[in-house]
């Protein structure tokens, strides 16, 4: 245990995902010995992210305005809507250059063990968007793991009565992997080869 400010910093860093006590200590001492300007920049970035970044009111992607860049883009089609778990999945799919529709970010996957049910995700908002009638195809691009599959199955059942085509990315994405780690070519192929999801 250290005293005062340095211990406070270690404690705060230790609460971050994937940062253990040893790493927290290493990062804290790195910050302590860093240039004042570098530390100020970091502090500013931390403050700005909470002050300026919000969630898009339409798709819940990260945005610096009420609506994100993708929702504001008039050249994209409203007919295809791609559902993902996290904003970082939007980035991964955008990298492929294969998709010209819109997104909907759920904020996670249904995971009963973690207490995450349908009501904890942006599913109600998705249904409201779909009831608008513009969407012809719904692509379920949740992660290719058990939680992602179960979430896709749940959504497909919910959307079925609306008569919208529901598709799932082609297998070829390895099970258990995170979508964000798929390379552009594999993810692009998975998009091209998407198939109807029967439930």
């Amino acid at each position, binding site marked *: 245990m250290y005293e005062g400010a340095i211990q406070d910093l270690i404690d705060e860093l230790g609460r971050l995902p994937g940062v253990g006590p040893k790493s927290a200590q290493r990062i804290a001492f790195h910050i302590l010995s860093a240039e004042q300007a570098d530390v100020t920049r970091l502090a500013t970035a931390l403050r700005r992210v909470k002050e300026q970044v919000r969630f898009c009111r339409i798709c819940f992607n990260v945005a610096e305005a009420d609506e994100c860049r993708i929702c504001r883009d008039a050249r994209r089609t409203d007919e295809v809507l791609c559902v993902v778990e996290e904003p970082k999945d939007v980035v991964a799919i955008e990298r492929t250059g294969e998709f010209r529709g819109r997104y909907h970010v759920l904020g996670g996957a249904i995971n009963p063990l973690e207490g995450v049910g349908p009501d904890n995700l942006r599913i109600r908002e998705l249904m409201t968007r779909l009831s608008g009638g513009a969407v012809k195809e719904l692509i379920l691009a949740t992660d290719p793991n058990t939680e992602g599959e179960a979430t896709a199955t749940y959504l497909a059942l919910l959307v079925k009565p609306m008569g919208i085509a529901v598709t799932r990315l082609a297998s070829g994405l390895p099970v258990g992997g995170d979508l964000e780690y798929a*390379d552009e070519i594999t993810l692009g192929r998975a998009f091209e080869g998407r198939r109807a999801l029967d439930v």
Partner: protein
Amino acid sequence: MSRAYPRKLYRDDALVLRCQKLGEADRIVTLFTRRHGRVRAVGKGVRRTTSRFGARLEPFGHIDVQIAEGRSLHVVSQVEGISLYGRRIGSDYARYTAASAIVETAERLTPEEQEPALRLYLLTLGAVRALGDDDDRSPPLILDSYLLRAMALSGWAPALTECAVCGQVPESLLDGVGPQQTAFSVPAGGVVCVNCRPPGAAAPSTATMSLLTALAAGDWKTAGASDGPARRQASGLVAALLQWHLERGLRSLPLVDRR
């Protein structure tokens, strides 16, 4: 003289109960092993799409695993799939939510890591297998049967045929006696007779009582023939019993899809 910390390796078969993300691409998996009880171990790099291990360390998989004991966390060094039930379970929402409640219960009933619990292991594996195979039994019934039997293994078997307090068979459960309702008290531990009945006891129907008895005994013919109201009442009592014995409720139980 310095020497590397000698890592003990062991091999076992196991059911994957839970996966949690760790750092950039690793995952902490909670395993229920046949001979070593519940074990938490790190699967390194399994979230990268190039990992060969990823699919084998998904929830609900029955695996053959080699684990290296570490000073703080154990590490999965080898893993082969025996039956990866996660695929089938993930494609059916009712199976998925029932399986989640089963593995959460198994986790809660094994509070100590590395304490062997063979009978609970076999029971849990059997229930997950029933959900992962194309079994036509209803997922919520598989869950409720599991919960009753898992409680029995923990010494919390509810009294279903005689009074939990005095041991007499209540008249309502005797054949040929009129449609008198059975009293059921969660704090008393099950069925109670008229004399022992505490205030606030539930009054399950005869159909509910025979469903509970069938589920506890694994009598699937009787259980499968039960109707909706009996199933709802039975699952409510099972959930209340489990809640009574565990300090905190299960997170997954309210999310079980019982349609």
